[in-house]
């Protein structure tokens, strides 16, 4: 099995681009899901944002390795712990020919905070924006936020004039009378590609913006995107040469792709961590045969569970060697990752049995595992394997695998965290460990909007204190030390059962070179058609 990293691809792309002549070059690709809207504020979801990132841009951009680089802002500096100054890029034009100015930034930030927007979280990271002149703004944050720019690549900038002209000053929403919003089916960004046509769930065609402000490696003049839901159909379309790229590709098909002529699997570790959580909040589990107490409140039981799981077997057999077993909820690509804590809990069924006996469950107990079956790479199969591994130490797990809509409807806050034991995956939107801590690890607190995805309510006041301090610490070294301390506590508590970082799995024709970004994003800027 050949692993090719995105880095090589990117280097090759840059090298090739310099010599390619300009002519019509079409890049065709398929993804399992679809582009539900063209409105950049309509949905905070990675595929939509990744795709629209080729049409719209934020003040900062991701480079091929997901590092932050200047985008529509040329430079920025911190004035006080809560204020930032941004110098905006001059001479940038929207696709419609309008000039990009400070007003557009302020308008877009406001739009992201209006009703119908799903980008309110990003809007709320900024308290106010003041225009200094047409190309200088000052942003104020509600609290010191050393990683503000991490959240800027996906806060897309729209043109104020265009939006006002077409009456789309707030985001497209399914509710209310905001449907049929102009921006839902039309786009006017500053990015390297323009929307030529878009039929939801059928086909979208994009063409190169010849007036793009930056030199980029791509030589593609037209991009055609088709959603293909069934994995075998997707893979067939690639092998038959109809498409230049498809993703995701089932991990078991890598060998087949590598053996087929003219195509290959492009893989790498994704920044998404897959893990299993325990309900440690309730006094009695909702779905278990143990009544009157909650076995997961006992650290020994949680430890027994993690030691019963053979992560290497899951990696080898289910993920075909492609996953990275992990001991931490943050991936290596995430700022604040701690190498020393990342080694998984050891696989030791004997120890597991001993721990269960010590905790008073020598014959194990029964519990239901909630699992999605169409959200993460081989999610249901991982759950099945966990079920069978736990059976070997005496724990009888009932597996309830459901489509993601049913699954999330059950386990999330909307249904009152209706689960005892669940599998979840997480990529921090800001690519920073603070997001992991405040979403998954701090105690649930609905008012402060903290720990909303800590479905099992793991709760340790010390971690909460540290997380609060991390949120406003601007000294990177101190901040990272605190992050490491918090993760160490979670690990010793066995707050979660980390499984692995799932692999990125793309199928690419030899005709093209692409850059595979760690958040599974396809940036057309680095797509090069080889001749």
């Amino acid at each position: 099995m050949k692993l090719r990293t995105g880095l090589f691809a990117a280097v090759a792309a840059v090298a090739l681009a310099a010599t390619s002549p300009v002519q019509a070059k079409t890049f065709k690709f398929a993804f399992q899901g679809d582009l539900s809207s063209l409105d950049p504020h309509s949905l905070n979801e990675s595929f939509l944002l990744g795709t629209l990132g080729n049409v719209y841009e934020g003040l900062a951009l991701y480079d091929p390795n997901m590092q932050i680089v200047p985008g529509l802002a040329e430079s920025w500096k911190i004035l006080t712990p809560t204020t930032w100054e941004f110098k905006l890029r001059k001479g940038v034009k929207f696709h419609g020919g309008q000039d990009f100015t400070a007003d557009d930034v302020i308008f877009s930030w406001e739009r992201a905070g209006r009703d119908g927007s799903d980008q309110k979280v990003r809007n709320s990271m900024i308290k106010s924006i003041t225009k200094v002149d047409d190309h200088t703004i000052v942003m104020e944050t509600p609290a010191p936020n050393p990683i503000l720019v991490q959240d800027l690549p996906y806060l897309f900038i729209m043109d104020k004039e265009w939006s006002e002209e077409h009456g789309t000053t707030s985001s497209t929403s399914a509710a209310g009378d905001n449907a049929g919003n102009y921006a839902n089916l039309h786009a006017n960004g500053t990015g390297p590609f323009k929307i030529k046509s878009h039929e939801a769930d059928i086909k979208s065609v994009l063409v190169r913006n010849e007036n793009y402000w930056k030199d980029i490696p791509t030589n593609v003049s037209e991009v055609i995107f088709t959603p293909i839901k069934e994995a075998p159909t997707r893979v067939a379309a690639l092998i038959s040469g109809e498409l230049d790229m498809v993703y995701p590709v089932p991990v078991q098909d890598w060998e087949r792709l590598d053996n087929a002529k003219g195509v290959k699997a492009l893989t790498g570790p994704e920044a998404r961590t897959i893990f299993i959580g325990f309900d440690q909040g309730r006094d009695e589990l909702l779905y278990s045969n143990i009544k009157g107490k909650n076995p997961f409140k006992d650290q020994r039981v949680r430890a027994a569970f993690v030691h019963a799981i053979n992560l290497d077997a899951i990696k080898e057999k289910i993920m075909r060697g492609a996953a990275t077993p992990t001991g931490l909820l943050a991936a290596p690509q995430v700022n604040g990752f701690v190498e020393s804590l990342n080694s998984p809990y050891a696989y030791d069924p004997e120890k597991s049995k001993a721990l269960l006996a010590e905790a008073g469950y020598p014959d194990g107990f029964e519990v239901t595992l909630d699992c999605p079956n169409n959200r993460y790479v081989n999610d249901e199969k991982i759950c099945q394997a966990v079920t069978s591994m736990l059976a070997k130490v005496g724990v009888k797990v009932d597996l309830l695998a459901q489509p993601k809509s049913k699954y999330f409807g059950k386990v999330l806050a909307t249904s009152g965290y209706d689960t005892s034991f669940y599998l979840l995956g997480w990529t921090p939107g800001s690519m920073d460990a603070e997001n992991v801590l405040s979403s998954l690890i701090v105690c649930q607190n609905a008012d402060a909007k903290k720990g909303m995805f800590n479905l099992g309510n793991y709760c340790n006041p010390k971690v909460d204190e540290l997380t609060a301090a991390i949120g406003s610490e601007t000294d990177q070294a101190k901040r990272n030390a605190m992050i490491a301390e918090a993760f160490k506590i979670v690990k010793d508590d066995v707050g979660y059962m980390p499984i692995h970082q799932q692999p990125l799995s793309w199928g690419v024709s030899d005709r093209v070179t692409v850059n595979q970004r760690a958040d599974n994003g396809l940036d057309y800027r680095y797509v090069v058609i080889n001749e």
Partner: protein
Amino acid sequence: MEQVTPATKTRLQRFFGSDVWYSFMRSPVAIISAIVTIGMILAAIFAPWIAPNNPFDLASISIMDGNLPPAWESAGDSRFLLGTDDQGRGVLSTILYGARISLIVGFFSVIFSMVVGIALGLISGYAGGRTDALIMRIADIQLSFPAILIALLVDGVARGVLPSELHTDISIYVLIFAIGISGWVQYARTVRGSTLVEKNKEYVQAARVIGIRPLTILRRHILPNVMGPVMVIATIHLAIAIITEATLSFLGVGVPPTTPSLGTLIRIGNEYLFSGDWWITIFPGITLVVLVLAVNLLGDWMRDALNPKLR
């Protein structure tokens, strides 16, 4: 299915002395398909005893045995004659257990359709008038919706109404109901037709005159006469039910993968069609096709043999 009514039995006994039996013995296709069908049913019933390992017992399967090719290939393992799937379950064993589930779903949904269909058909034909018109109108509406859509609807409702922790346990009953409810119309129409004919025959009129209760008349005199065509429909319906179950599994509303049916196995194996692990799809696929084909051939022969006009 012989236990449905005592009348069936006598009817079947009559078969053996008749030229139906003779025609059966003369048709090699019928004999072979009967042997295959019965063989598969027996294998499914006795799966717990003949399967080399129990794929539903999670403590006994090991993921380290996953994706092993059939035993005759160099990487194969003698414990797993037909190889293993991704979870390390022996394919032979999953097929035996899977066929069991497919046949259970098939048989019970056919019985369900049959009971509902015969009952409504008899009532409709015997009572006539408004009752008849109402039942037949419902049948029309029902007939206009393809079975697969009805099954999708029923399954969707069931999954919504019932608490989700029950799903794994009851999914098989939901499937039986969903497939069964979509098939009763054919039985009802056939039975109604025969009932209309029989009702007006003199012996039935006579029985009515001497005051025999309608229920008794239906059971003694009319039912035995409609069992022939009903058996033909039932056989073909069994094949359709098994296929429908497989299709529902493909659409993601079948039985859970921890207790897979043949359809679920094909669905799982589908994901391995492009990778080299052909045995995960091919063996369950062949089993399904052979089973359905045998049942269909049997039904075909039965229709020709029981249709007096064609004899």
